[in-house]
């Protein structure tokens, strides 16, 4: 029984079958990659997992509980965090505040009217946030507006924000898109470290096969909304169906 069990999930948008009968099982503490050509339904699946979309059929269980019908913040509080393709951070706030917010979310839950406390008086949380900033090597940027940072810094910040919450499952949407090779390798190392040291299960959507094969323990290949095959990386590499799907797309 995996930490995340997706069974028979289907989703239609008008005439388009975006997802059809998707089954997926993600094992605890593993890194699971979802790959597939453009339009295969990867993003739709991710949106179903985080509660942004409600599927027409099927079930999604996380640690034995259904996530369907819950709103995104509830699903997050269950332990699922998401990193976006384009970093989603609080651009108008400082780097420190960006980190503090998940600290509060972790401690206080999805809503608390703490209107007469003072952020900076929460010594414990401040110390925690500072430690994280030191960990990700951003402590000297703590008072910067997040929006004014480089794209790479924004990615690191977003990752750090997700890690603050100590999620059980981290969903990553093309975490290395647009990166130079050296940065990509750094990110791979970072993710590996996170996976191993913090015991966080990861589910990655990725185009870059180098990243996928460096990280993933299992790979699911999606095509036209349905899983073609799920297996360990070695087997995926030479799988005829996969090659067909990718090559077919590449040439067609």
């Amino acid at each position, binding site marked *: 029984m995996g930490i995340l069990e997706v069974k028979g999930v289907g989703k239609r948008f008008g005439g388009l079958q975006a997802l059809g009968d998707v089954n997926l099982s993600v094992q605890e503490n593993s890194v699971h990659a979802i790959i597939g050509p453009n339009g295969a339904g990867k993003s739709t699946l991710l949106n179903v997992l*985080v509660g942004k979309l409600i599927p027409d059929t099927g079930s999604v269980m996380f640690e034995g509980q259904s996530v369907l019908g819950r*709103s*995104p*913040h*509830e699903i*997050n*509080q269950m332990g699922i*965090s*998401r990193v976006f393709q384009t970093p*989603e*951070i*609080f*651009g*108008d*706030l*400082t780097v420190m*505040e960006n980190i*503090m*917010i*998940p600290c*509060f*979310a*972790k401690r*206080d*839950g*999805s*809503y*608390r*009217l*703490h*209107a*007469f*406390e*003072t*952020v*900076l*008086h*929460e010594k414990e949380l401040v110390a925690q946030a500072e430690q994280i900033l030191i960990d990700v090597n951003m402590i000297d940027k703590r*008072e*910067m*507006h997040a929006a*004014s940072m480089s794209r790479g810094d924004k990615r690191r910040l977003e990752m750090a*924000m997700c890690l603050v*919450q100590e999620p059980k499952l981290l969903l990553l949407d093309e975490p290395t898109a647009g990166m130079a090779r050296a940065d990509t390798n750094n990110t791979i190392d970072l993710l590996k470290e996170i996976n191993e040291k913090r015991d966080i299960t990861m589910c990655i959507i990725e185009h870059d096969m180098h990243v996928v094969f460096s990280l993933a323990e299992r790979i699911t290949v999606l095509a036209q909304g349905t899983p073609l095959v799920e297996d360990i990386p070695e087997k995926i590499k030479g799988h005829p169906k996969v090659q067909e799907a990718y090559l077919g797309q590449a040439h067609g």
Partner: protein
Amino acid sequence: MLGLNKKDMNLLLLVAGLVIFAPFILNPFPEGSELAQFNAGYPDLMQRFVIFGIFAIGFNILFGLTGYLSFGHAAFLGVGSYAGVWMMKLLTMNVVPAIMISVVVAGLFSLLIGYISLRRSGIYFSILTLAFAQMSFALAYSVLTPLTGGETGLQLSLNDPRVLGISATETGSIPVTHFFGLEMRDSFELALGSWLFTFNAGYYLCAAVMLIAFYLSIRIFRSPFGMMLRAVKSNQQRMKYTGLNPKPYTLAAFVISGMYAGLAGGLMVSMDPLAGAERMFWTASGEVVLMAILGGAGTLIGPVLGAGLIKYMENILSKINSTILHEWFAFMPDGIEDVMVTLVYPFIGKGWHLTLGIMFMLVVIFLPGGLVEGGQRIARLFRRRGAKTDDSGAEQSQNTPAE
């Protein structure tokens, strides 16, 4: 001190100093001088400054922090006013219960309207709040006349059934509003040479309430809650995926700012016990938006400055007439005097709207951050001049939020 850092404490002390010494600061010109026209240190206007300051501070908690632009906030001020007057009619002329009921009623009303309106965002939210406020105005002006006084406004009368008090004084007048016996219109006058300063009880009550309101707003700005509100403005998507529910935060901000508006309404009727329906018209809602933006939305002190400026123009500029103009320019030769009067006349007195419109445009065009930004620019100018030798004195990154 008081849970504030040094900078905020200084700001609070500065504001406290300004409101305490307002009777001096606002009356810089000696009585009888030509410039006495510009004195604003009389009770009514001073009260208005701080009351509208409260209103704008509250509005800013919603708009400045969450970015939700309510175009119907005057409705809460109006509802608070009506509740306050009814309290005076039915219970007592002591202003404390009136102010309390104003806050409570405005809070409940804003809870209802906020709950519905916050189902939408952006301009759709603005139009929903506008629609509710316009409905409130239209009904208060017409079919709800028995409850609101309609066109005339809700006022006290000689036969109010005041439970804890008298319907009429021995001399046959309506009793006056008071704070445990201290009449709101009591004043102490100090004549210093040809200057006259008025210290009004009502003003100081309003000022005290305003300082508390301002203090609370600083606390909210610096609180985790305030940070969450800014997160709502910045990125609701990320907020949701951080496990936070933006709705209750926004609704809480809406209700808090509605209660601030109710507080302002309660104070208004405590100073002058009549509640007119016009204070709920959409232009009144627009006015508080303008106050916030003019002063600097999202800053602590900005809305107060904006409120002060607009009320000053409304009350001082509109009273200047051509006779006064002629007096000002009387020292000039006759021909030039007339030219000057002709040039200035369209902008004052009945033309004060024109000046207001021009000022809005100038501020938005040249000072997008409002008056606060203007102040910052001037301060920076001085700082740069002071530290000219310091080569690294380049632009500091503007990372101090919400000054």
